C-alpha cells in the first residue's frame, strides 16, 4: 500500500467556466482514491464549487426536462471526492475563503465544507507534504 500523504490544493476558479476547475477535481479525486489526506483552500470564484444552492434545470430549447437534461452540479463532485477519500481511509478538508464567499453571496456550502481564511491555507501548507496552487489566468 502506498505511503499516506497529505497534499494541499489552492484553487480559485469557479464552476463551469474553465477547465482548471475540472483538472483540480481530477487531481483531488486521484489523491482521494489513494486515501491521502487532502486539504483544499478554495478562494475567489472557487468558493462557488461547493455552493449548496446549485440547482439543475430543464432545457426548453432542446425540450428536455430537468431529469433528462441531468445538468452536472460541481457541488456533487465535491461531495463525491470527500466520500471517495473517506472510503479509502483518507480525508478531504475543504475550506472556502470567507471574504470571497461573502463578496459572492455564496456563504452556503455543502456539508463538510467550512468557512475559513488565508490563515487556514498557511496552516494547510505547514501540515502538508506538498502544495499545488492552481492560479486563475
Amino acid at each position, binding site marked *: 500500500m502506498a505511503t499516506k*500523504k497529505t*497534499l494541499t490544493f489552492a484553487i480559485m476558479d469557479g464552476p463551469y467556466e474553465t477547465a482548471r476547475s475540472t*483538472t483540480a477535481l*481530477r*487531481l483531488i479525486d*486521484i489523491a482521494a482514491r489513494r486515501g491521502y489526506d487532502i486539504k483544499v483552500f478554495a478562494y475567489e470564484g472557487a468558493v462557488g464549487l461547493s455552493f449548496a444552492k446549485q440547482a439543475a434545470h430543464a432545457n426548453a430549447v432542446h425540450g428536455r426536462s430537468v431529469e433528462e437534461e441531468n445538468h452536472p452540479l460541481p457541488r456533487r463532485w465535491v461531495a463525491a471526492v470527500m466520500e471517495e477519500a473517506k472510503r479509502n481511509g483518507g480525508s478531504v478538508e475543504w475550506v472556502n475563503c470567507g471574504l470571497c464567499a461573502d463578496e459572492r453571496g455564496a456563504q452556503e456550502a455543502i456539508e463538510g465544507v467550512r468557512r475559513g481564511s488565508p490563515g487556514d491555507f498557511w496552516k494547510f501548507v505547514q501540515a502538508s507534504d*506538498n502544495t*499545488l*496552487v492552481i*492560479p486563475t489566468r
Partner: protein
Amino acid sequence: MNEYLLIESQDPLESGDVLDHYRLAAELVQAGNRVTLFLVQNGVFPARSSPASDALASTAWAGVTILADGFSLRERGIASRRLIDGVAEAPLDTVVDRLAAGHRVLWH
C-alpha cells in the same frame, strides 16, 4: 539537485508566456535540476506535430522530460502516434505522484 514538475495548461498560441515557461524548464535543467514539463488541457496542443511545436521540441532537446495528459489529448482528438519526439503520453496520476514525492511543482 532538485526535482521540478512544471505544469503547462495553456497553448502557446493563446498565451505569450507559455514560451517563458518552456524556457524556465530548460534553464532549470541547465542549472543542474531534473525537470518534467507536464502538459494538460490546451497545453497539449503543441505536442502534436505542427509548426507550433518547435519550441516544445527544443525544450525536450534541452533535456526536459515532457509528458502530456492522456485525458487532455483524447478530449482534443490527438492520438498518441501524432506526438512529437520527446513527448510521451502520461496519466494525470503522474502529477499526484510527483507531488507526493516532494517535487517542486509550478502550474502555469
